[in-house]
């Protein structure tokens, strides 16, 4: 009888195979766009799905990394790989500062303060000069990865992006299934109990927040290289909302959910943008409401539930 971990293993295999052949059947730019957001959503899910913290300001980390990467690659002629590292490091640092300020807050206060801090970053990016303000940073050279791979070729860049995504995915997966992840689950399940067992829960939450911010930054840094430009959109609150939607739509607290959610949302956005224009926002809003009201477990969560029902097993 197949069990869930075998299904999951098969899922990894299918995911990898699909990832390898994908650029031959779909536009690499679309795929890279979706992969950046998939990593972003997975990083967000580590915080919401596995730690129970709802951040409404995750675009700050995505945007910080995108700007820093874009800036150092364009004006300092830093190679793209190093630029991505610099962006990720910057997002991690911002994550540490934000996290230290907000980690003691709970529930709606946590969400509101992360939103407020992200808005501060947004206005900083708008005012400061290195970001190009309203114009953003344009014409970021893709350059060569490790002096060998010419990233101007979309398909080559795609494989580098895929590898980076997989790296991020593995880090998240390991984090969830580590002694640290076990404590995170305990905190999510019953925080006072975790405290009474001697855990300084704020330190654990802060580390989860920083890891999540860093990986969101990795996603933003790649985004800058893929699109060769960075604008204020990368750090505005719509982007923070989008990552929440992707995670909820795909399935909160599931391993594959955020990936499915990210591909679904990015597909809709790219397909609908030229057909319905600004109605996209309305459609996204409706999906959001549908998700919250009708299928709370998201696409993957509902699918797993169905699978278990078919096999006559109890969901857990």
């Amino acid at each position: 009888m197949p069990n869930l971990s075998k299904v999951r293993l098969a899922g990894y295999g299918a995911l990898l195979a699909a990832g390898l052949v994908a650029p031959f059947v779909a536009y690499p730019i679309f795929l890279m766009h979706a992969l950046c957001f998939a990593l972003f959503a997975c990083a967000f899910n580590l915080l919401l799905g596995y730690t129970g913290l709802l951040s409404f300001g995750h675009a700050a980390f995505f945007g910080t990394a995108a700007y820093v990467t874009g800036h150092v690659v364009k004006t300092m002629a830093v190679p793209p790989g190093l630029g991505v590292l610099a962006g990720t490091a910057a997002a991690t640092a911002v994550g540490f500062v934000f996290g230290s300020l907000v980690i003691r807050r709970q529930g709606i206060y946590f969400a509101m303060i992360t939103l407020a801090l992200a808005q501060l970053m947004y206005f900083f990016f708008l005012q400061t000069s290195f970001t190009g303000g309203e114009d953003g940073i344009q014409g970021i050279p893709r350059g060569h990865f490790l002096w060998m791979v010419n990233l101007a070729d979309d398909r080559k860049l795609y494989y580098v992006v895929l590898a980076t995504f997989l790296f991020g995915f593995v880090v998240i997966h390991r984090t969830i299934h580590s002694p640290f992840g076990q404590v995170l689950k305990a905190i999510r399940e019953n925080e006072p109990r975790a405290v009474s067992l001697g855990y300084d829960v704020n330190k654990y939450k802060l580390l989860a927040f920083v890891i999540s911010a860093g990986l969101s930054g990795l996603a933003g840094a790649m985004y800058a290289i893929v699109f060769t430009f960075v604008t204020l959109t990368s750090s505005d609150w719509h982007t923070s909302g989008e990552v929440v939607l992707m995670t909820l739509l795909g399935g909160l607290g599931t391993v594959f959910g955020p990936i499915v959610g990210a591909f679904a949302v990015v597909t809709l956005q790219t397909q609908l943008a030229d057909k319905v224009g600004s109605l996209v926002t309305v459609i996204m809003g409706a999906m959001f409401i549908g998700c919250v009201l009708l299928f709370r477990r998201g696409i993957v969560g509902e699918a797993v539930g169905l699978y278990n029902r078919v096999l006559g097993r109890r969901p857990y």
Partner: protein
Amino acid sequence: MDSDYILEARNLAKEFKGFIAVSNVSLKVRRGTIHALIGPNGAGKTTLFNMLTKFLAPTSGTIHFKGRDITGEKPAQVARRGIVRSFQISAVFPHLTVLENVRVGLQRKLGTSFQFWRSENSLQELNGQALELLDDVGLASQANVVAVELSYGRKRALEIATTLALDPELLLLDEPTQGMGHEDVEKVRDLIRKVAAHRTVLMVEHNMRVVSHLSDTITVLQRGSVIAEGRYEEVAANPQVMEAYMGTAAHV
């Protein structure tokens, strides 16, 4: 400081926006004993527990544990010193398995709890110890059940096993038998006696049969103040205590 006493609270008070839930309570818990805290609903027992474990900051007063002033410490720190509590409402990790629940209590001492790069398989070395603890509370056969599926009484037993995983010197139990059937009550009573053999227990309990069976000392709280203290017979004969319990005779 008298070393006979493991815990000493002096003049503790807690005020909630003008409402005094606990006023001027002094309490000494003698090392190696079972000390019961009783009193009618709303007397302030849980509030007192919350202060002793630092889940609430006292409005005034001090708390000493093993001669050290812990009044300014954080709850997790107090737990690591050896004061571990249970909760009035059963506190398990509902979507972890029974075994994993106990392991959360055990794993901190491995020192790997921040290591997000290490596999959780490394926690399996704790399984033997966890199973022993579960065996003590009669849950070993359900080690792989998800905690949410346990009956109420068994959740409480799991909670005690998880608490014991920390091997606390002082165990604080808030109504360990509340909501249990007759049989479970007896099991938990025996369990408390067993675990109290080499540690100190302070417990809130409404079931007088359990209290009379187990306690060396009883402190009676009413409307935030201590009205009596002593052995069961002494306290039960106290007219003030009898009066306090008139309205809540169901509990006696």
